[in-house]
């Protein structure tokens, strides 16, 4: 496999011009009449390279610039400045050709034909992307199996459940085997089973076909389960680019041990040297410590030596907590760069 990046993004910037708003008397009228504009940067300065076969989680809070970046990568939006290269093409300049090499799924929007049986939309994809019949048949059979679509292939899209529709949308985006797949919130609003089916499918494609996947999501389980790399953006700039473990270590260097003493009333009194009591609820104490200062085994040993314990568990920091912490930090010291 080549090591040349399949996606190259350099100093990408996108500004939107919005008519200036006026407040006060006749503010609405002045807003309508004005020719003055406010320039709002949605993406300030984003650079990254993605190698073939990577499964990248692209995340950030609402309004951070995720969707805008994805739109520029897919070629449906032109950046204000900066360069994007996807498989050697500039997406918005070579839109039709680029379109043949990418799959796009916007979780909230469907590309399927509403009134017609699912299979009809697949046939359109076949014609649109010139998929040879044998390959189309093989892929369709494989996807039907993997995504369990056999039961609703002949059902009009309007009658599908959200989970079924999402699976069909994903299949439609992959039937022509694009090298790159962009997914904007593919699991939004789905139940646990449907989410699992989609994650399994993505993991499978990524391993067996080497499809490069870029995934934006608010679902932390998606990322923990799938992403080999995270790119975190906020206020239009990259704030982190690396793997999950490093992210957790950097932003949440501590671990916690949850101790449930036999006598719940004693929970508050549990103190172990080198740890800090983070909180106490329901007769359990959360002891926080830095694993580089004191080992997990040491903490547990000390707890068991000093107290009567009925239950004990170790908690790793979850991604959600880590992100919450990062966003909160940025919000405090970086307010100035949005205005």
């Amino acid at each position, binding site marked *: 496999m080549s090591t040349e990046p399949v996606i190259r993004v350099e100093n990408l910037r996108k500004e939107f*011009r919005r008519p200036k708003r006026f407040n006060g008397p006749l503010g609405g009228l002045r807003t309508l009449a004005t020719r003055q504009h406010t320039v709002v940067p949605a993406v300030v300065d984003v650079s990254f390279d993605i190698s073939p076969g990577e499964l990248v989680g692209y995340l950030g809070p609402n309004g951070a610039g995720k969707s805008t970046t994805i739109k520029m990568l897919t*070629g449906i939006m032109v950046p204000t400045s900066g360069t994007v290269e996807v498989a050697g093409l500039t997406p918005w300049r070579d839109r039709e050709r680029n*379109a043949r090499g990418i799959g796009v799924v916007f979780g909230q929007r469907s590309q399927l034909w509403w*009134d017609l049986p699912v299979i009809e939309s697949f046939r359109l994809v076949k014609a649109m992307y010139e998929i040879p019949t044998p390959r189309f048949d093989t892929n369709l059979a494989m996807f039907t199996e993997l995504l369990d679509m056999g039961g609703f292939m002949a059902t009009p899209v309007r009658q599908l459940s959200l989970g079924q529709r999402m699976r069909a949308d994903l299949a439609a985006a992959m039937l022509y085997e694009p090298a790159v797949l962009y997914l904007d919130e593919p699991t939004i609003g789905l139940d646990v089973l449907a989410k699992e089916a989609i994650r399994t499918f993505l993991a499978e494609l990524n391993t067996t076909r*080497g499809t490069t996947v870029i995934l934006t999501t608010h679902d932390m389980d998606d990322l923990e389960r799938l992403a080999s790399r995270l790119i975190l953006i906020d206020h239009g700039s990259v704030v982190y680019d690396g793997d999950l473990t490093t992210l957790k270590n950097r932003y949440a260097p501590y671990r916690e041990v949850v101790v449930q003493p036999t006598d719940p009333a004693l929970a508050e009194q549990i103190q172990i040297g080198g740890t800090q009591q983070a909180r106490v609820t329901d007769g359990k104490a959360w002891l926080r410590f830095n694993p580089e200062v004191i080992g997990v085994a040491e903490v547990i040993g000390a707890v068991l030596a000093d107290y009567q314990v009925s239950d004990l568990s170790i908690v790793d920091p979850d991604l959600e907590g880590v992100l919450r912490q990062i966003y909160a930090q940025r919000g405090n010291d970086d307010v100035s760069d949005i205005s």
Partner: protein
Amino acid sequence: MTSLTPVAPSGIWWRLRASAAIARLAGRSMLFYRTSLAISVIVLLVQIYALSMVWTSVYADRGAVPGSGGVGDISIEMQLAYVSLSVVQFWALNGWSAYSLQQRVREGRIGTDLARPLGLLWQVVMGRVGTIAACLPFAAAVLVLATTVGNVSPPAGLGAAAGYLVALLLATIISIQLVVLVDMTSFWTLEVTGIYLSFSLVSRLLSGSLVPLWFMPEWLRVLAGLLPFQATTFTPVAIYLGTLTGTAVWRALGISAVWVIILGVALRLSWNRVLNRVVVQGG
């Protein structure tokens, strides 16, 4: 591993096949609304019947009435045939379609539509082609019924038939161009019902589907004759019936062809503006 760079589309055949696939799906979607189509057919028949009554009563006991614009006398038979043909043709070419640009904008589908290897404008046009094609069998059925009650007769001659086919092709192109242009305003207004209603009224009058151009006052006849609307209804039907003959046919076809070019350019220019708005301004 082969290069990741996607190959360029392989020429005209691919484009035709993909276009046909879109038209086919748009047509099939129309058939999903069978009840609504069936109702339209009934309404069309009622409309033809009512208009026939009106014209019969206007003609009273006169067998023919002089028409303006050098078409000579218009017999009652010719007038009734005109009414049937123009009503049906107008319906088939201007039918509502399930996959209009407006619908795509409203549902937010246009993101994925833009990420297709086929241009979005072309996808929309092909959607119209499919919609019209789905209406054709129904239009033909209505005409057959109208023929059996004696309202419509075969084309005036071989030349008229050939002229009619050419004019009908141009009429179809112009209708699609006009509808897509109106549809495009949805990018600015996000809502086109009001605009569509006004368009529909104007085009119904000026196309000659309410009253043929030969019964319009002179100034309106001249004006309508220069606008694109008449090319969608009046021109083909008048050629079919043989009221337009000789140089008048060539003139009418020439005007239609010029309008195809003008509207094509207008469509391309406004589409570029729309695309610029979506692609640069982010919709």
